[in-house]
């Protein structure tokens, strides 16, 4: 008993800084291990990001930089982006939400339906079906997007050749504003549902069989079993995956850019492609930075909700 008390006393008499220094010295090696990666991220990414945030308060573009008339403009870029002056960005933002909602909705519903179907206990060739369904997820998105663009080609693409052979008028898949957005959404649904199928399948397999057996004894209908056992137990896995999917879809660049390029006439532009085009075509550095900051704020909000939900769910699991 006694020595313990003594040691407690001695540590408390050492000043707090001395203790910190002592701990730092003792773990000296840890800093050598952490430092290289931290430095790389700091120099290559965090520094530039902070610079970029700063840039959004200036009027920097190719013209002003050439003329040496770069100056501080306060919140003007933000007012321009979100206010009436630049209704274009506002439309792009709304379109991004529509794009995200449509995609995630179909990813989750299609993914769930397929996972539930594949989970039927006596279904044969399950593994075979599952493998084929997962394929779109395994192929690099970049390649998929380019291939779909060719299939959508109005003169020679697969879809219009089929329509023509059936004697139907060819469809302007990518040159009609609303249709082009729909075409891109179809591609992204094709790309995204396998991930949800996989997550839901994993979660389904971890639901104990006896729950269903008990429900059978109580005479539950399949619908009741689905509503009261399966769906609630899928929630902990599906919710984080859905939020993750929302972030991926919101920031997706490849599908829109490679298939429509944001066209025709900016009709399919979403924030990521819009920002890219503002940057590369107009060389409007400050405006591009401003859009980035706005998108970051939206994403941080989504991530915060994500963390809350995941935390709430894990606590639910503990109880």
């Amino acid at each position, binding site marked *: 008993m006694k020595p313990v008390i003594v040691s407690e006393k001695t540590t408390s008499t050492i000043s707090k800084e001395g203790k910190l220094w002592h*701990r*730092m010295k003792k*773990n000296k*090696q*840890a*800093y050598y*291990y*952490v430092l*290289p*990666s*931290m430095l*790389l*991220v700091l*120099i*290559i*990414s*965090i*520094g*530039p*990001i902070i610079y*970029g945030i700063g840039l959004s308060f200036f009027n920097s573009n190719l013209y002003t930089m050439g003329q040496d008339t770069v100056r501080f403009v306060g919140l003007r870029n933000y007012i321009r982006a979100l206010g009436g002056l630049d209704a274009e960005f506002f439309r792009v933002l709304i379109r991004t939400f529509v794009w995200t909602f449509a995609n995630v909705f179909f990813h989750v519903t299609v993914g769930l339906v397929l996972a539930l*179907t594949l989970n*039927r206990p006596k*279904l044969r*060739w399950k593994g075979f079906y599952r493998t*084929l*369904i*997962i*394929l*779109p*997820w*395994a*192929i*690099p998105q*970049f*390649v998929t997007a*380019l*291939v*779909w663009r*060719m*299939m959508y080609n109005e003169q*020679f693409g*697969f879809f219009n*050749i089929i329509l023509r*052979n059936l004697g139907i008028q060819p469809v302007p898949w990518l040159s009609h504003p609303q249709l082009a957005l729909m075409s891109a959404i179809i591609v992204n649904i*094709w790309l995204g549902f396998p991930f949800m199928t*996989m997550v839901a399948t*994993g979660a389904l397999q971890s639901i104990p069989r006896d729950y269903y057996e008990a429900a059978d004894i109580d005479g539950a209908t399949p619908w009741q079993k689905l509503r009261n056992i399966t769906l609630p137990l899928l929630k902990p896995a599906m919710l984080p995956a859905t939020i*993750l999917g929302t*972030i991926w879809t919101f*920031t997706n*660049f*490849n599908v829109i*850019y*490679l298939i429509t390029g944001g066209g025709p006439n900016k009709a399919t532009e979403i924030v990521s492609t819009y920002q890219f085009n503002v*940057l*590369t075509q107009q060389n409007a550095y400050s405006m591009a*930075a401003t859009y980035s900051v706005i*998108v970051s704020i939206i994403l941080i909000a989504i*991530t915060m909700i994500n963390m809350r939900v995941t935390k709430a769910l894990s606590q639910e699991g503990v109880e």
Partner: protein
Amino acid sequence: MSRKMKEKISYFFTHLFMITVCMITLVPIWWVLNTALDSRTTLVTTDLYLLPQNPTIQNFTTVLSHPRFLMWLKNSFIFAAGTTIFCLTLATLAAYAFSRFDFPGKKSGLASFVVYMMLPATASLVPQLMLVKVLGIKNTYMSLIFIWSAANMAFAVWNLKGYFDTVPKSIEEAAIVDGASRLQIFTLIMLPLAKPAIAITAIFVFTAPWTDYVTSYLFLSDGSMYTLAQGLFGWAADFRTVSWGVFCAGSIIMALPLTIIYMVFQKYIVSGLTVGGVKG
């Protein structure tokens, strides 16, 4: 009897449904393979057959003997392999420290990686372009290996730390008793144990440079540094000089290695994504 019949009918429709879904899923994949294996010499085709009329691998030999395609392939491989090796070396070291040392600043260090994951990479593109110019490393392998490594660092560190945390400490304690140094423990005990986690993380990190178009488009202006993604993008836009068969063969060559890896490791990749992935 009637119940059995009912069940049979219900399974029949389930199969019918699954077959339909699989067919829809396979259409683009079938189309690419069909186009790549077709021998017709026209640049584009206007009629369709279920199977190639005169199956041939001629498009593949054309692509694989195309000097520029080989150059893109080489560049992409250098970028992807370089990024994977560089990023993982730094990330395993950091992850090990975060998992095993109790040093002041550990919590804020880990938290800063999370915050960093939330910031979109696009916000840093313009300043990064300026930085690369200032450092005089434009159009070099190094510049993009740095950028891709930094972009994937947070994910890699968190993913690996999560794995190191699951390795029981008793193994190391035994080694410390035997007089092993921290570095020895790391290289001789932890690294071999963490092989599966490192492999999965490596797949993710490799995918980014291999399939990224934006970064290479913005940072590489020298044609001899172009990546596969840039090259194929050019081919896709230009079907007057490059036939669709050749383009499709090139796409397959670019996609196949990753597709096989993703199919083989699907379970681990999905759990890795949902656990450690905040960023796409």
